[in-house]
């Protein structure tokens, strides 16, 4: 099936938040602290501006709690007494003229008594730098399997390494956008670009001290998210709502690109250290892994990003003794947050680079080292999770090597590199996994709900809070419902997420939409078909033509009514997770990938070009070839950017290059065609047999590409992004032409 809203997007007819016609509205903007850390002593409004023309909101105008509602409530909606990062919101302004508003923002000065900030998550702390607990640690976690310390002592070979990754900006092409108003019934409403309607709803309830019926959140078409519109839109929504509440008017906040890049979350920078014990023939004996993530100024989602990072840190390998420790640490940077992969790309990068380093140490091919250690059915991950399903990992690896013509090409590269004065070619491999759905007992805790309504007009409506942001939710949900009921897709409609109309199917994150929420659609369809069968006196729940005939007959007799089928998440029987020990089934299942990158490095400029890329994966059953391939190509290219060019430059905890002019993301000319292959094995508990696909493609390219650069040049790069400047430092000048 073609993307359902595709033509509307291609013709330019799709109306995003900033495209909606509004009359008599105000623009809203944010005044930020300008100081990375300090005590607010005054806010000065320049007397040259006629402030009576503006709506002005400070923390005093918040009717409920001045806290952004998330895991911990440490972040204020508007800073009241202190600021913890340079872009912290302090004052909100609204005005009908956007230019006048822009000028006015520059005329408000937040006077701050500076306090000593922290920018390096590893630097020793002075007492006056403490801002969270006793050590500025947001979260510390540990995974233990076997006895890694003893096994390391006994191991014949021990290989160490330290790996670092930088922050990454999402660069969804539609910047953040939110519209707020109060409706005739006094309900505070927002509509805007967002991933998680119920996160925003909870934030509004908390800020306005209201129950769910006093607030309403509607998603507008969302021009990309990638995690960047997971938690941050809650802040913008509350800001817009505060301005609307105070002014009594509709208020629209659209971030300019520079504000969006400066003030909103990024991927967590990480430092990961590995100590690995292996036998001489490359069997893993012990993995000792230490992870530090820079959480930025507030807790936001750092604990769960760290958790996912930890769980994926030992890679898709079997090892009897594993010890992983991780900390997410406060710095006075803008808060880091969710970004496609959610901690796993960072730890996979470290582990997959480290596997190549181990292979080099042993004089073994990196492919062979992986083949000897890849998890087989029945073996266990670092948390003791037994691998029950999925395509054999070695089969995926072989398929990727075949598609890349790995051996033949490496031979040709060796000849090429000997002959060429300054170009060097190489290939790199990464094997990896990604858990679909919330981590641990997260899905149980969410207890997502979904409804499917059989309407008297003969259509079936899927009602969920899962959002379309480009990844194909609308199309895939339609397919799943149509297949579940065996009816044509044009009899299915998917409701637009609106918290007054749809149940909470959970946030649109964690590669959970097709697998977890899609499965709820199937169960709700069963429930609804059962009700319809009972209403028509049928002996069983009808499907296909019988369903449509029954629905048409029921609809004629019950005009304007509907039969609602419901489902709520129930974990598969086999899933057991122990939060105290961090042991058990961290995810109901994993998707798996084997990627091969080919690069060409120019030793004159130290620039690296990806010249070929093969992505083979097991994502369960593929529900839609074009959409699934699009997730992989998009993820791979985003990861190529992270690996080679996307560098956030920091100054006083703020991104200095907050423009697309100097934060460089890949263009069509910077990347090769991605060779995407799926090896399918339907997953019994996923919608239509699907597992997660959204995040997996972010995990493999970083290490595959740096492994290829190592292969091409003999350098041993351990830090992302591998910009020409970084690579230059790694290659002795004698090697350059």
């Amino acid at each position, binding site marked *: 099936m073609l993307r359902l809203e595709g033509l*509307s997007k291609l013709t330019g007819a799709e109306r*995003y938040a900033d495209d909606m016609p509004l009359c008599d509205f105000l623009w809203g903007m944010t005044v930020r602290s300008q100081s990375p850390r300090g005590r607010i002593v005054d806010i000065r409004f320049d007397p040259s501006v006629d402030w009576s023309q503006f709506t002005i909101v400070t923390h005093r105008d918040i009717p409920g709690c001045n806290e952004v509602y998330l895991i911990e409530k440490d972040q204020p909606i508007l800073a009241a007494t202190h600021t913890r990062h340079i872009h912290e919101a302090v004052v909100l302004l609204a005005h009908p003229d956007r230019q006048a508003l822009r000028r006015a923002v520059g005329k408000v000065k937040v006077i701050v008594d500076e306090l000593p900030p922290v920018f390096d998550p590893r630097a020793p702390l002075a007492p006056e730098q403490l801002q969270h607990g006793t050590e500025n640690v947001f979260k510390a976690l540990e995974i233990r399997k076997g006895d890694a310390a003893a096994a390391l002592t006994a191991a014949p070979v021990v290989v160490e390494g330290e790996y670092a990754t930088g922050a990454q900006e999402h660069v969804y*092409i539609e910047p953040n956008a939110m519209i707020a108003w109060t409706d005739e019934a006094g309900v505070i409403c927002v509509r805007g670009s967002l991933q998680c309607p119920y996160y925003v709803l909870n934030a509004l309830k908390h800020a306005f001290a209201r129950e769910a019926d006093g607030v309403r959140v509607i998603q507008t078409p969302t021009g*990309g998210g990638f995690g960047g519109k997971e938690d941050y839109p809650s802040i913008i929504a509350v800001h817009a709502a505060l301005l609307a509440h105070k002014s009594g008017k509709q208020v629209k906040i659209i971030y300019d690109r520079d504000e969006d890049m400066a003030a909103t979350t990024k991927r967590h920078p990480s430092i990961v250290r590995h100590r690995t014990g292996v036998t001489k023939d490359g069997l893993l004996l012990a993995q000792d892994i230490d992870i530090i993530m820079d959480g930025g100024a507030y807790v936001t989602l750092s604990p769960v990003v760290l958790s996912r990072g930890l769980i994926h840190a030992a890679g898709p390998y079997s090892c009897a003794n594993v010890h992983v420790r991780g900390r997410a640490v406060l710095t006075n940077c803008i808060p880091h947050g969710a970004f496609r992969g959610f901690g796993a790309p960072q730890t996979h990068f470290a582990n997959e680079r480290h596997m190549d380093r181990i292979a080099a140490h042993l004089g073994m091919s990196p492919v062979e080292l992986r083949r000897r250690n890849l998890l087989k059915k029945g073996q266990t991950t670092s948390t003791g999770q037994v691998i029950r399903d999925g395509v054999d990992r070695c089969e995926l690896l072989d398929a990727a090597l075949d598609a890349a013509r790995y051996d033949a090409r490496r031979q040709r590269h060796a000849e090429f590199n000997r002959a060429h004065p300054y170009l060097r070619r190489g290939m790199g491999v990464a094997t990896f996994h990604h858990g679909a759905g919330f981590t641990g007992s997260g899905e149980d805790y969410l207890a997502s709900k979904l409804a499917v309504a059989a309407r008297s007009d003969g259509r079936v409506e899927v009602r969920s809070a899962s959002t379309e942001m*480009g990844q194909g939710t609308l199309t895939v949900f339609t397919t799943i419902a149509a297949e579940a009921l065996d009816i044509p897709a044009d009899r299915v409609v998917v409701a637009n997420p609106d918290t007054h109309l749809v149940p909470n199917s959970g946030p649109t994150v964690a590669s959970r939409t097709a697998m977890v929420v899609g499965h709820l659609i199937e169960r709700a369809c069963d429930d609804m078909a059962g009700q319809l069968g009972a209403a028509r006196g049928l002996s069983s729940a009808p499907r296909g033509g019988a369903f449509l005939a029954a629905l048409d007959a029921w609809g004629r007799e019950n005009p304007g009514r509907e039969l609602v089928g419901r489902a709520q998440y129930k974990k598969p029987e086999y899933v057991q997770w122990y939060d105290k020990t961090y042991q058990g089934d961290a995810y109901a299942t994993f998707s798996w990938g084997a990627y091969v990158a080919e690069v060409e490095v120019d030793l004159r400029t130290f620039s690296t070009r990806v010249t070929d890329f093969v992505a083979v994966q097991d994502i369960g059953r593929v529900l839609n070839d*074009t959409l699934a391939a*699009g997730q992989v190509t998009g993820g791979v290219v985003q990861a190529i950017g992270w690996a080679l060019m996307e560098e956030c430059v920091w100054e006083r905890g703020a991104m200095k290059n907050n423009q*697309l002019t100097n934060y460089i993301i890949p263009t*069509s000319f910077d*990347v090769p065609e991605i060779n995407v292959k799926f090896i399918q094995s339907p997953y019994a508990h996923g919608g239509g047999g699907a597992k997660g696909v959204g995040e997996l493609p972010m995990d493999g390219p970083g290490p595959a590409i740096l492994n290829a650069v190592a292969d091409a040049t003999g350098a041993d790069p351990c830090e992302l992004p591998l910009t020409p400047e970084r690579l230059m430092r790694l290659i002795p000048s004698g090697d350059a032409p």
Partner: protein
Amino acid sequence: MSHDTMHIAFTLNGKAVEIDVLPHERLLDTLRYTLGLTGAKEGCGEGECGACTVHLDGLPVNSCLVPTFQVRGRDVRTVEHLSPALLAPLHECGATQCGACTPGVVMAAAWIRDNSHLLSRFSIRELMAGNLCRCTGYDGIVHGVERLVASEQGAA
């Protein structure tokens, strides 16, 4: 505010238009906020992303960088003017995901189709490099443009 406005006339999607604009007004804002043509998007406001691409006298330009008064007497075409039939190849190949870059991508694609002689010197990837897309990884776009050009040549 006491800016003097300027009165200009130009052709927009084949029709004559006359409006008053501020001297510093951007074509993108005039199209979106004054004329209600919201197809072109603002992705960056500084000429980097191409989401605001429109055709000016047949050439793709970033409308966020064009002061509106400069289109006086000229021919402006926006995504709203394209025939939906032309978009099928892009649709089939997965050229759009979130859609924020799409109107710009479509305008660049239409320009390539109308000037396919360029393909003897430049690749589609080169010609599309002014349009950032964060979703597709570009393969869907590149394949879509290939198919669009092929279908045009087949029809010619």
